């Protein structure tokens, strides 16, 4: 079916639907329905894939391209590094997207986009045509900003563990192998980066492990930012009270190079730091496919989008969401936010493919829980709504906030959050 014919059929269908003669978009189904291709099965892409299927009454075909065999959650992965959770606890199968929602899952990696022909090329050699492309490729690292990281073996020794998976396990092993009395140094890049409070949570998790298993060891936080970028007073209280003598925080430590052979970190202005375990979170940008396709128009790092549809400002029919986008003011790069982007984008894509207007009044929230121990948690929450004049998402005045103190009740809510968002994204 040609595109114009499809739109005519679709609008006829919705007119009939409005008259109560039929329900849903029954005539959209089958192999002739419009095609949506989603790149990346993380919080953003998996959610978008599920909701495009659900909200088109299963009339729009959705193909999800994801190289990993299963979904591994970044949120909660710091607890695997701390030793209180396992990889199995943070791993979820993609099976329900396929079985319940009819998503066509392709285990491959998108390498190229042809926006004129509307085709995505995959590493495996195949080409997928699309009517709408949803890109949720997450972040990739700007390793070029740390020249020593390109030396042979450097990236196997100095880990980021900032994408949950093999590196999460490997960092845990490095900590287990470290002698008592050793130093674990964590380097944090300038904001914006994925998961603002994540590094500080990781420091707590490692410190709790040290306090139990290696009490003479230290955690050294080397932050390129002037000060703690998220939940500052709550983290500092945990460090001063729970991890006194274990955690040391140093701001304004912008790492410029790494010598993996000697486990040494070099800085713009400060003296070199040597550590037993060096955990370097490099500066990051939008995922490779987005940068390569010319979509990262903000500082050549992030993709600017229309916040009503998540359509790229640089290319038609390509929607970008999740950590890859140039964020709105006070909008964090988080899994929760990527899930919200996924639903907003899915609603807009379904509307656009069925001749309807996208929602003009998006509103969604972010909730982010950080574990300061294996049980006690602090949160930050915010509500974001569309501002038609400024054409961006802004936080609602008077809304949002943080925990008054770390507490065990929110530790339970944090795990309930995880179970629920994993189900909302994947089940």
């Amino acid at each position, binding site marked *: 079916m040609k595109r114009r014919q499809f739109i005519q059929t679709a609008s006829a269908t919705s007119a009939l639907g409005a008259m109560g003669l039929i329900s849903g978009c029954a005539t959209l189904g089958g192999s002739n329905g419009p095609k949506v291709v989603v790149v990346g099965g993380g919080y953003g892409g998996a959610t978008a894939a599920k909701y495009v299927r659900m909200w088109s009454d299963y009339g729009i075909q959705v193909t999800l391209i994801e190289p990993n065999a299963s979904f591994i959650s970044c949120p909660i992965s710091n607890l695997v590094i701390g030793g209180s959770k396992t990889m199995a606890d943070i791993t979820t199968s993609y099976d329900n997207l396929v079985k319940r929602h009819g998503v066509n899952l392709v285990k491959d990696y998108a390498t190229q986009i042809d926006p004129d022909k509307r085709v995505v090329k995959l590493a495996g050699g195949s080409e997928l045509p699309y009517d709408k492309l949803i890109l949720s490729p997450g972040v990739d690292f700007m390793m070029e900003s740390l020249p020593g990281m390109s030396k042979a073996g450097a990236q196997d020794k100095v880990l980021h563990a900032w994408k949950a998976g093999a590196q999460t396990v490997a960092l845990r092993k490095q900590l287990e192998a470290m002698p008592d009395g050793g130093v674990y140094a964590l380097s944090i890049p300038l904001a914006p980066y994925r998961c603002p409070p994540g590094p500080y949570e990781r420091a707590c998790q490692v410190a709790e492990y040290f306090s139990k298993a290696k009490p003479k060891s230290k955690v050294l936080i080397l932050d390129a930012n002037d000060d703690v970028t998220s939940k500052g007073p709550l983290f500092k209280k945990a460090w001063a009270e729970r991890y006194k003598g274990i955690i040391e925080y140093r701001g304004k430590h912008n790492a410029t190079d790494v010598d993996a052979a000697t486990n040494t970190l070099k800085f713009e202005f400060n003296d070199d730091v040597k550590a037993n375990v060096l955990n370097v979170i490099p500066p990051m940008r939008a995922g490779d496919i987005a940068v390569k396709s010319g979509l990262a128009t903000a500082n050549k790092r992030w993709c600017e989008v229309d916040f009503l549809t998540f359509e790229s400002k640089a290319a038609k029919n390509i929607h970008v969401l999740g950590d890859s986008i140039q964020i709105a003011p006070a909008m964090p790069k988080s899994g929760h936010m990527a899930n919200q982007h996924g639903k*907003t984008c899915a609603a807009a894509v379904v509307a656009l493919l069925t001749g309807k207007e996208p*929602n003009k009044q998006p509103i969604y*929230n972010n909730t982010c829980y950080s574990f300061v121990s294996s049980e006690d948690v602090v949160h930050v929450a915010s509500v974001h709504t569309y501002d038609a004049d400024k054409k961006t998402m802004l936080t609602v005045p008077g*809304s949002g906030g943080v925990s008054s103190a770390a507490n065990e*009740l929110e530790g339970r809510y944090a795990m309930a959050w995880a179970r*629920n968002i994993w189900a*909302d994204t994947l089940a």
Partner: protein
Amino acid sequence: MKKLTFLFMAMMGTASIASAQSAAPDPLTVRSWAASCSNCHGTNGRAEPGNETLAGANKDDIVKKMLDFKAGRKPATIMHQLAKGYSDEQIVAIAGYFAAQKK
């Protein structure tokens, strides 16, 4: 006369339905608003263990709870901060959406 009265009433009826429809938010907009709750309360309000299921709950109960959170009358860890981000109209519409979902 009877016929005229009927016509008049029919017209009034149409007018009031039309104005009610233009005042009520679009159902697809409400669906998107409600989906912003599903990260924690489950797709269409059917929650996994540990958080409250909203699907099939009483609309007035949801509205009252949310307005109590918003006004600070009901203590919470996080909901008082989130409720303040939504207008009363949005809360009523979202509550209606969840009340209409299957449990």
